[in-house]
C-alpha cells in the first residue's frame, strides 16, 4: 500500500517521461528534393518534393533556416507560404548544374538543369517558427 506522496511522485515521473518524449518527437526528419529545367532561357518543370523520412537519417545538421510557422505542423504548407525564402536557401546550400548547349548551323539551343538531390532535413516544429537543417554525413 503506497502513500499519497509516493503515488504523486510516480505520476510526476510518468508525466515527465511523456513530456520529454513529445519534445523529442517534435524534431522530425523530411526528405526534400528540388529540380528545375531551363530550356532556351525559359523555365520548365520546376518540382519540389517533400516527404517524411521512413527511417532514421544519420549525419550532422548543417546551416539551418528559420521559417515562420502560422499553421499546424505541416511542412508542405509552411514551405509553400515561404517558398521564395526556402528556394533561395536551397540555392545557397548548393545545386548540381548540368548544362548542354547545341549550335547547329549557327542556331543555338540550350538546356540547363539544376538539381538538389534527395536530402534528409531535420525539422524542428515550434509554436511560432520552424527550424530546418540538412543532415550531412562525415562532416563535423
Amino acid at each position, binding site marked *: 500500500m503506497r502513500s499519497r506522496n509516493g503515488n504523486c511522485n510516480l505520476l510526476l515521473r510518468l508525466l515527465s517521461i511523456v513530456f520529454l518524449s513529445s519534445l523529442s518527437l517534435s524534431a522530425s526528419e523530411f526528405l526534400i528534393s528540388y529540380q528545375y529545367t*531551363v530550356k532556351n532561357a*525559359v523555365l520548365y518543370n520546376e518540382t519540389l518534393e517533400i516527404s517524411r523520412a521512413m527511417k532514421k537519417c544519420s549525419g550532422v545538421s548543417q546551416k539551418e533556416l528559420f521559417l515562420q510557422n502560422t499553421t499546424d505542423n505541416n511542412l508542405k504548407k509552411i514551405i509553400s507560404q515561404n517558398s521564395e525564402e526556402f528556394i533561395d536557401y536551397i540555392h545557397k546550400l*548548393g545545386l*548540381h*548544374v548540368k548544362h548542354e548547349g547545341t*549550335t547547329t548551323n549557327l542556331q543555338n539551343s540550350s538546356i540547363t538543369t539544376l538539381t538538389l538531390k534527395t536530402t534528409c532535413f531535420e525539422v524542428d516544429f515550434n509554436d511560432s517558427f520552424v527550424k530546418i537543417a540538412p543532415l550531412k554525413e562525415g562532416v563535423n
Partner: protein
Amino acid sequence: MKLSMFFVALLSVSSLFGADTVNEEASKAKIEASVARTEASAARIEALNAKAETSVIRNETKESKAIVSKTTAELEKANSIIERNALEKAQSKDSEEAFLAKSKKVYISVVGQGVAPMNTVSPAQAYALAKRAAIADAYRGLAEKIKGVRVEGHDLIKNMMMQRSTIRTGVEAMVKNANIVETTFKEGLCEVEMEIVISYSDFSQ
C-alpha cells in the same frame, strides 16, 4: 846458327804474310758483321718507328676516347642541370599558385539572362519565372568559369560543301554559396548578376 836464324826469319816473314791474310779475312768478317749490325739496327729502328706510330695511334685513340667521354659527361651534366632548372621552375610555380590560393580570395561574377514564357497569368508570374531562368543561366556561367566547358564540334562536308555544322558544349558542376548582387527586369528579359567567392579552404576539405 845462321840457319836457325834464317828459319826464324822465314817463319816470321811467313807469319807476317799469313797474318795479313788473316787480318783481311777478319776485317771482312768484321765489315760483314758491322753491315749485319747496321741492318739489324735499321730493322730495329723501323720496328721502333712502327712501334712509335702504333703508340701514337693508340695515344690518339685514347685521347679521342677521353674527349668523347668528357663530352658525354658534359652533356649529361648539362641535361641534369636543365632538368633541375625545369623542376625548380615547376616547384616555384606550384608554390606560387599554392601561395596565391591560400592568401587570396577569388571573386567570380557573372550575369545570367532569362525570359518569361508567353502563357503567364500575371506580370508577377512572368517576373518570377524569368528570374528563375536567369538564376539558372548565372549558375551555368559560374560552373563554366570555375570548372570549364566541354566542347565538341562536328562538321559534315559533302561534295566540298558544308552540309551541317554542329557545336556541342556542356558542363556539370556543383555550385554553392552563390549570391545575387543585382536583378533587373526590362521588356520581358530578366538579368541577374551573381557573385561567388572562392578561397583555398573551399577546396581543402
